């Protein structure tokens, strides 16, 4: 790609192949993400976008190839997955907040259990990040008492509490009512402005134009095209990309 040295790379995937049974869902994925780079990943449903980003923090195992995060290469069995997960935060389509814990407790649990932070420190950091996503006043509520947009912002705060260097977003706004999409995207844009490394699976093309350094198009387990947003949208080089873009832009 742009010839970044290993120390400037946040993520490097090389020759990654993955199968579910007989079905190959990732085909020869090569991807390098520089520190501070923002990538938007798009493509039709079932093309392997979720699988790709879930390989980065080893929620999925790969059968061939290597995944390196901040210089640490994931072992096949994932014995060093915990080490890598320290640096990688993830936000899911379905929020996945813990329903039996308050917003504040959701943000404190992993700090306490993984980072062994004291209650006071964990709480202080949780409140700081909840303020950052403008939801501190709901700290004592339970997830079920919040709107989808609020829940997703809590999920972002929860991930940030672990001081990740890389954030992975898997369709963070797809489960939201339209009027709540903006508050979540605004939160993500402000994160991007802070220079965190980010891979975001989304079809929000406005977001892609605003923050992406590169837009990547995937289809049937392959990376088809990777380009700067202005080139990607105005002058895509592959037929499949054009077909996909015309579909999502017409809807």
């Amino acid at each position: 790609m742009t010839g970044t040295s290993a120390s400037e790379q946040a993520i490097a995937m090389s020759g990654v192949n993955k199968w579910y049974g007989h079905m190959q869902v990732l085909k020869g994925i090569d991807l390098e993400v520089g520190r501070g780079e923002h990538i938007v990943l798009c493509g039709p449903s079932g093309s392997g976008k979720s699988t790709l980003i879930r390989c980065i923090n080893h929620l999925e195992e790969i059968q061939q190839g290597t995944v390196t995060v901040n210089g640490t290469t994931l072992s096949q069995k994932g014995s060093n997955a915990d080490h890598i997960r320290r640096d990688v935060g993830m936000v899911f389509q379905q929020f996945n907040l813990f329903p039996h814990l308050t917003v504040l407790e959701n943000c404190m649990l992993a700090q306490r259990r993984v980072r062994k932070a004291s209650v006071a420190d964990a709480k202080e950091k949780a409140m700081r990040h909840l303020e950052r996503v403008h939801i501190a006043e709901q700290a004592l509520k339970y997830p079920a008492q919040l709107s989808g947009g609020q829940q997703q912002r809590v999920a972002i705060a929860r991930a940030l509490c672990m001081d990740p260097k890389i954030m992975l977003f898997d369709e963070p706004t797809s489960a939201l009512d339209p009027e709540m999409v903006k508050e979540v995207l605004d939160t993500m844009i402000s994160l991007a402005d802070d220079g965190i490394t980010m891979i975001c699976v989304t079809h929000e093309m406005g977001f892609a134009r605003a923050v992406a350094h590169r837009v990547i198009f995937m289809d049937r387990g392959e990376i088809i095209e990777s380009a700067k947003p202005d080139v990607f949208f105005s002058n895509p080089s592959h037929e499949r990309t054009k077909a996909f873009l015309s579909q999502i832009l017409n809807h």
Partner: protein
Amino acid sequence: MNYSFDFSPVFAAWPMLLDGILGTLRMSSLSMVFGLALGLVFMLMRMSKLPMLRSIAIGYIELIRNTPILVQVFFVFFGMPALGIRLSGEQAAILAMTLNCAAYAAEIVRGGVQSIRPGQIEAGRALGMHSVDIYRFIVFRPAIRAVYPALCSQFILMMLNSSLMSSVSAEELTYFAQTLDSQTFRSFEIYFTLGVIYLAMSQFFSIALGLIGRVYFSYPAK
């Protein structure tokens, strides 16, 4: 019909019945707590990746659920002395009920664990948490909540079944009632009263377990 009903010998024996009630409450509660704890162990074994642990758990659960609890307690009380393990009636009762409760609790709680969306576990993993912590802090409470009514029914059923423990002279309510019957021959009055007391005790457990549930699961549902 020239039988004249007379409850006075029954009421006169209230200290004995009270002892019986306390015995039943004590044995049942202990067996519930121990049974749930042991049930969690069998549940984890049942869901383990290791085929060996899974087979042991399945074998145990099937064995317990397909043999009468009376036979189980007879085995513990009359059979185990052959192995040099001699227990009092009450100890045998608690052990048998614990072993029995564990098998049912394991299956009930497993249903609860399976009802947890995979996303919950993934969120824990993505945050770098270990599986033990994920079970303990993320899965456990919602899983128990999902099956709490079934678990409570099982507990109450076990409390009622504890009457069978009179057969090994565990000093619970039915044991004392039988003693009283042999002394007074007021069978109708005694077993009628006994029925009323068991009914009251299951109501008591139902309300107490409900309150515990209300406190422990106070978080709002999705």
